[in-house]
């Protein structure tokens, strides 16, 4: 009796998930397939999912528009920004987490507590003074304007520190007896052991940086220097209702994070649980 009921609820669940999954995946598929349709087909026909005639003209048009929408340039700008920011975050967050979690120094817990308490602070308040600081440094319109401010978050340190807590202190102590200094212990013993959490931090930093919209649209005035995410906004004004080209640029923009996710799915899911687990 219970078993039948169980199977019944499994079937209901499957049907519900299937219908919802259609709602979630169809917009993606429709966008991707439309980027391979001719403008005529998009404009006149009904709502067929697959193109009747597959064309790559939208891709050629979008990729070769070097005059007012240099999408390859924007793509490379984004790649540079996201990569450098990820490396910077990994270095400064892991070394800080190492000190806060495994070294003893005056004021350690106090400084860490102050850092943690700023996590609640709404960053919208920072926008205007941050812009002023960057303009004093002459960083406006340069990649540094998004790379550095985006790398100072404290949540990453918190995550890494939590992870480090599971590594026994005996590892450090025996290395110290063998004559290793703090730097050697950090590089040779701790860093290899915390690779899983560093992977998670790297993935979330990269996607977060790639998808950042508001801040880059404030600090870049020069079209050439823009990263891709805020630059997509310009396509709207340029291509108006040319949905072949608009969907094409959207597809190009989602490729990197999509590829990253396909190869590292498990880390994304673990990362979410890690952050909700420690915060919730």
């Amino acid at each position, binding site marked *: 009796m219970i078993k039948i009921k169980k199977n019944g609820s*499994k079937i209901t*669940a*499957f049907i*519900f*998930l299937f219908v919802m*999954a259609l*709602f*979630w995946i169809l*917009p993606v598929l429709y*966008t991707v397939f*439309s980027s391979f349709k001719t403008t005529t087909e998009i404009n006149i026909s*009904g*709502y067929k999912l697959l193109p009747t005639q597959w064309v790559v003209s939208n891709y050629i048009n979008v990729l070769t528009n070097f005059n007012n929408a240099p999408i390859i340039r924007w793509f490379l700008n984004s790649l540079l920004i996201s990569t450098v920011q990820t490396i910077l975050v990994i270095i*400064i967050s892991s*070394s*800080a987490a190492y*000190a806060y979690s495994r*070294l*003893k*120094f005056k004021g350690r817990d106090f400084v860490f507590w102050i*850092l943690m308490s*700023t996590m*609640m*602070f*709404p960053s*919208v*308040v*920072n926008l*205007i*003074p941050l*812009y002023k600081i960057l303009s004093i440094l002459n960083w406006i319109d340069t990649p540094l304007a998004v790379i*550095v401010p985006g790398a*100072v978050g*404290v949540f990453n*340190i918190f995550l890494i520190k939590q992870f480090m807590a599971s590594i026994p202190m005996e590892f450090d102590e025996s290395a110290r007896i063998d004559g290793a*200094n*703090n*730097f050697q212990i*950090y590089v040779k013993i701790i860093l290899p052991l915390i690779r899983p959490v560093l992977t998670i931090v790297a993935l979330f930093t990269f*996607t977060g940086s*790639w998808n*950042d*919209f*508001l801040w880059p649209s*404030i600090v870049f005035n020069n079209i050439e220097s823009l990263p*891709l*995410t*805020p630059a997509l906004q310009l396509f*709207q004004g340029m291509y108006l*209702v040319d*949905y072949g080209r608009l969907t094409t*640029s*959207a597809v190009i*923009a989602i490729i990197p994070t999509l590829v990253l996710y396909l190869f590292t*799915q498990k880390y994304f*899911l673990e990362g*979410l*649980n890690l952050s*909700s687990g420690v915060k*919730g």
Partner: protein
Amino acid sequence: MDKKSYTPYMFIAPHLILFIIFFGIPAVFGIVISFTKWNILGTPEWVGLKNYAEILSDSSSTFYTQFHIGIKNTLLFTLFSVPFCIIVPLLLACALNTKTKGQKIFQSIFYLPTLFSISSVILAWGFLFNKNFGPINRMLGNSINWGGIQPYTWIAIVIITVWWYIGGNMVIYQAALAGVPIDMYEAASLDGAGAITKFFKITLPSIKNQIAYTLVITTIAQLNIYGQPLMFSKGGPANSTSVLLMYIKQTAFGSGESIAGIASAMAVMLGLCIIFVASLQFYFLREKA
């Protein structure tokens, strides 16, 4: 001083110095500037509470109008979208928790949109919702102007937001549900409890911490709404989707002279809403203890 005593500071210094310059100082000055008249270029001039008085109660000022429209629309959007951003992923997670076929694929599909930037999401959905060329209208056989007539614009923006946002919440609920012991459900079944009773008596109480957590982070995320109305409806029709962040950006970094003091006061007001929501989490957690 021997070597040992200062090396720890070298490990925290790179982050701490950058943090102070690019977070600490802007945070303090963001509040200070809201009490000044400033155009970003010159020297700020102290004006006390004048900016707040202007946006909160001087109905002859354009900034009063902008602030009121902006905060109203921001709060409205939050009110519309947050319930769906909690309930939809919760239902999905419950369904996935039955360990039905294709669980992994379903999970990936629902998580997928969270990987996309808001600008690519709007380019795609702008097409889907387009009045003349969009498949949604063609399928429904009508010509609704989703981007230009209310309530359709809000409906479209909420649909897009829910589609884009819920993946993370769903994964969090899935992990929480996996931790609820199955015998609790089996015991309830023997007592004759139905699916709905079980949901409210067992499921919800067991994952209430995760619900509180997601409720807080989701509300904060939605209070920061910016990209959707900016790109989907340009704040329209008739400013009905003009949100506060749009006015803050326009006032501080718009084409004319910057009115940074007023913009900062608006930002502080939005920040207060965010802090209020964030502090609710502590209330929830204390309740648990």
